[in-house]
């Protein structure tokens, strides 16, 4: 038997490429979270007529870096009676899925790690694993607040996963593919080709549904019932401190960015420029670069929108939240799905 060195080398090179991409995305997520948290504090401060962080570094840009360093050297407290192993593993179960989702996110033309054919299902499937981590954290803490928070979190996350799925099906119907890259390519051209300005009113309803349900999935105000400082102390991560808390925090903001990336990819034309002369005519590496910039600009706008919503709306009650999903978004989403199906089958396909 002889060793097929050529094949082995090819495999090694492929793994090395993926590894490089994986590390790049990890660093990207860390930087995005540092920035988004800072931006959140600036936006909320401006809206509340405060100054916000402005002391650490120029204009306060090093504030979140300082916070991260502080968290890094904080004592790690595991409460008495807690399940030490599960207490330690729970942050990993929450963070790793939030990170692995980024495999299919199309950052730019040819800048997807792997454009999987099952992209949309992959995103919903992987991100649903986090629920288990949250319940584990609540259970392992041996704390009533944690457990109550974990239960609320589980109910909220599972309630809003159905509307997310139903909303994501609308762009899938229109482009005839679950592959996120294909969905983006179908929106190429100008702003009029984006799904947001397509198939009135089904796509607009779906976009709004994805925004609302996604906010609930990402646990941001007005749907931050898992934390609900005034009711549940801090929810499922009450007993967490130091780096383990930082991992939950990281996962939460990574999920918020995933939401904005999904909104951009599915409805706002993905990495395509809004008008042709702003980069649409480029080819090759130049278009990859320009499309990456457009993707990031659009994501930034959606992130600012999310932060704006976060700082202006009051928190909803848990019964209102559950009604919003099961009695509001789910029936609307099902009806929307059928109407869009009829539109696609009888109009678009003709």
């Amino acid at each position: 038997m002889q060793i097929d060195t050529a094949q082995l080398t090819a495999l090694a090179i492929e793994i090395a490429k993926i590894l490089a991409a994986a590390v790049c995305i990890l660093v990207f997520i860390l930087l995005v979270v540092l920035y988004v948290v800072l931006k959140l504090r600036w936006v909320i401060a401006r809206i509340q007529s405060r100054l916000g962080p402005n002391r650490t570094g120029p204009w306060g840009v090093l504030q979140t870096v300082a916070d991260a360093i502080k968290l890094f050297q904080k004592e790690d407290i595991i409460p008495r009676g807690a399940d030490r192993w599960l207490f330690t593993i729970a942050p990993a179960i929450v963070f790793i899925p939030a990170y692995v989702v980024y495999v299919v996110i199309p950052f730019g033309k040819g800048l997807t790690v792997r454009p999987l054919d099952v992209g949309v299902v992959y995103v919903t499937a992987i991100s649903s694993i986090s629920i288990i981590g949250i319940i584990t954290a609540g259970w392992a803490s041996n704390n009533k607040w944690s457990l109550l928070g974990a239960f609320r979190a589980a109910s909220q996350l599972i309630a809003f996963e159905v509307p997310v799925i139903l909303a994501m099906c609308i762009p899938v119907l229109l482009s005839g593919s679950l592959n996120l890259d294909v969905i983006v390519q179908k929106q190429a051209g100008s702003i009029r080709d984006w799904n947001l300005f397509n198939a009135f009113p089904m796509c607009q309803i779906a976009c709004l549904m994805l925004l609302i349900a996604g906010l609930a999935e990402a646990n941001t105000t007005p749907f931050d019932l898992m934390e609900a400082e005034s009711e549940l102390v801090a929810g499922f991560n009450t007993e967490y401190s130091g780096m383990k808390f930082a991992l939950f925090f990281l996962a939460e903001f990574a999920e918020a960015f995933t939401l904005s990336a999904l909104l951009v990819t599915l409805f706002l034309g993905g990495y395509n420029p809004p008008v042709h002369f702003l980069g649409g005519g480029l080819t090759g590496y130049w278009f990859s670069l320009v499309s990456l910039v457009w993707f990031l600009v659009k994501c930034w706008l959606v992130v600012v929108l999310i932060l704006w919503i976060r700082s202006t709306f009051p928190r909803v009650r848990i019964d209102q939240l559950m009604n919003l999903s099961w009695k509001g978004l789910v029936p609307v989403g099902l009806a929307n799905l059928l109407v869009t199906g009829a539109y696609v089958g009888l109009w678009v396909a003709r």
Partner: protein
Amino acid sequence: MLAKDFLAVGVFIIVGIVFVAVTLIASYLFRPYNPSGEKLRTYECGEIPLGPAWLQFRVGYYVYALIFLIFDVEAAFIFPWAAALLGFSRTKTLAVLGIIDMVIFVGVLALGLVYAWKKGVLEWK
């Protein structure tokens, strides 16, 4: 669709595990460690915790999970339908067939949702 595409998923999972392990171990080297009885007590607004933390939950939570499971299974059917309908509707007959199939499928489930609604199960108490 080749299984090889999922190599990336495997690599990402491993990188994620390594990242979590490295940060936790690195912070273990830097952080202080001096536990005390007060510090290790579970937090209950400053009171001394009473009774076990593992409360008995009511069945309502479980029912929401069951309904979610049912809709998740439904989604497993909706996803391929949504992806294929555009290509499937080559002729008007096929398009109508594809749409009617899903109308019946969703209609039956909507019936279940209406039943649960009328019985008051979707009421958060």
